């Protein structure tokens, strides 16, 4: 039996005299699952503050979403995690009184810059919502085509893009014989994958997922989680979830937010085995409040 050298290199050096046990030096395998050659964009939030009218709900968030990485965003209800991702595709400003300050860079571009059009932002930064929301008057195919129409992809290229998107969302084989059925005739999990396909069709660099599984059963949740793991090579993913275990399972980096502040961010391994902040520890251990 040969030993996997790479595996051994990943571990720290430990003298055999050292009594082995949990207190021994931890091997340096606390590396973030960065996929090399990942093709998403980097998103950098710099001191982002968000308001509803005069009420401030984000108090200066600085955080980076790296390509090839699923960044899980956890925190109790109302901590501002949804608001934060909604600032990235400027959906926050669609809410009456919604306002966002600070810099949000997509690679080098300031998404809040005066010359940046919101349509371009949303083409670059796709979003999947908590509840599957296929357009009820459109067919399965029509739903995927809708985004392409909105962003003005030429008619003859739309169908192939739609098929590619459905394939990427792991839905093609299930729907290829019923593309003209209404999108809402699918099961909940399929509807959510349809929404993912719809978002992917416009080829975004970033995909924001706002509690994408909270309305789904465990089996459908597992499918979506697998899908997220596959998609991260293509698109930078931010995953807002109130389900800590979900962040633990599929996020490579986890950010913990509380009352509009980013408390701690780090590799998911570390956040769930050795968080640095007392509040993170309390939250992930379920002793909050």
């Amino acid at each position, binding site marked *: *039996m040969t030993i996997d050298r790479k595996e051994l290199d990943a571990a720290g050096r430990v*003298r055999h005299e050292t009594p*082995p046990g949990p207190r021994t030096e931890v091997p340096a395998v606390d590396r973030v699952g960065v996929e090399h050659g990942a093709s998403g964009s980097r998103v950098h939030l710099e001191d982002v503050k968000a308001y509803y009218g005069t009420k401030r709900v984000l108090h200066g968030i600085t955080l980076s979403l790296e390509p090839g990485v699923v960044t899980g965003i956890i925190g109790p209800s109302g901590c501002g995690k949804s608001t934060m991702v909604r600032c990235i595709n400027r959906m926050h400003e669609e809410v009456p009184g919604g306002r966002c300050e600070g810099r949000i860079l997509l690679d080098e571009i300031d998404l809040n810059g005066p010359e940046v059009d919101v349509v371009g932002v949303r083409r670059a930064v796709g979003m999947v919502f908590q509840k599957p929301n296929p357009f009820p008057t459109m067919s399965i195919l029509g739903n995927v085509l809708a985004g392409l129409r909105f962003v003005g992809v030429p008619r003859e290229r739309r169908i192939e893009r739609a098929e590619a998107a459905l394939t990427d969302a792991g839905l093609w084989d299930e729907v290829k014989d019923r593309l003209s059925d209404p999108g809402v005739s699918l099961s909940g999990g399929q509807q959510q994958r349809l929404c993912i396909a719809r978002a992917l069709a416009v080829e975004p660099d970033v995909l924001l997922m706002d509690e994408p599984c909270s309305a789904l059963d465990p089996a459908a949740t597992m499918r979506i989680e697998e899908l997220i793991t596959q998609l991260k090579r293509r698109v930078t993913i931010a995953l807002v979830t109130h389900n800590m275990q979900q962040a633990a399972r599929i996020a490579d980096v986890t950010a913990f937010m509380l009352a509009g502040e980013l408390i701690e961010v780090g590799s998911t391994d570390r956040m769930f085995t050795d968080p640095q902040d007392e509040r993170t520890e309390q939250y992930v251990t379920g002793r909050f409040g």
Partner: protein
Amino acid sequence: MMRAGLAGGLRASEQDLVAEARLVHEQLRRVTEALMTRDPRSAAEVVEGDDAVDRLYLVTEDRLLKLIARQGPVAGDLRLVSAILHSNLHFERIGDLCVNIAKFVLNGYRYPTDSQMLRTLMDMGDRAAAMINDGIDAFVARDLELAERLTVSDDAIDVLNRTMLIHLRPYLGDPASFEWASHLLLIARYLERIGDHMVDVGEQVSFLVTGVFREFADASHPHGAST
């Protein structure tokens, strides 16, 4: 359908456990060979080789802790995690015992290699090495029968261990040989401990398969009490 992250982590951990067991088996065979030939070079290699065992131990320990933290294994998956964690420690300890034997060889005592004590130790070493192979085979195959048969081998090692006292007698009066002779007695004890560790691994296999933890009854712990 199984969650990819969990399945992959468990598979990798079990593969590492097998690798660790094979490595420890090799360490034991090498150190008994070094003992038989009084070969300090070979013994030094065993001491060095333990680093690899320790690294495998830590990789598995670390991976499984993170797996528990992130994947929340339950039922059979949880038993596998627990069984690997326990067995991992046993194999690591066996590695340490091999190092203890190697260090004795490195002391350079001029003990006779054709004594009854050495022959008994060789016999014990062979049996302990076979137990390591049987134990990890039983683990991989989830073979309850093979796991329970480890107690038979362990009983034989225990008997051999007790005969060491008899073989020690000729050297008791001789101050020149007393020191190495008592070390050889300790080595017998180490080999006997390896047998006990492997019986414990067998118990982990039993737990993994049946979901019930029980200590195997054998001559060394007739009342189910551990030594």
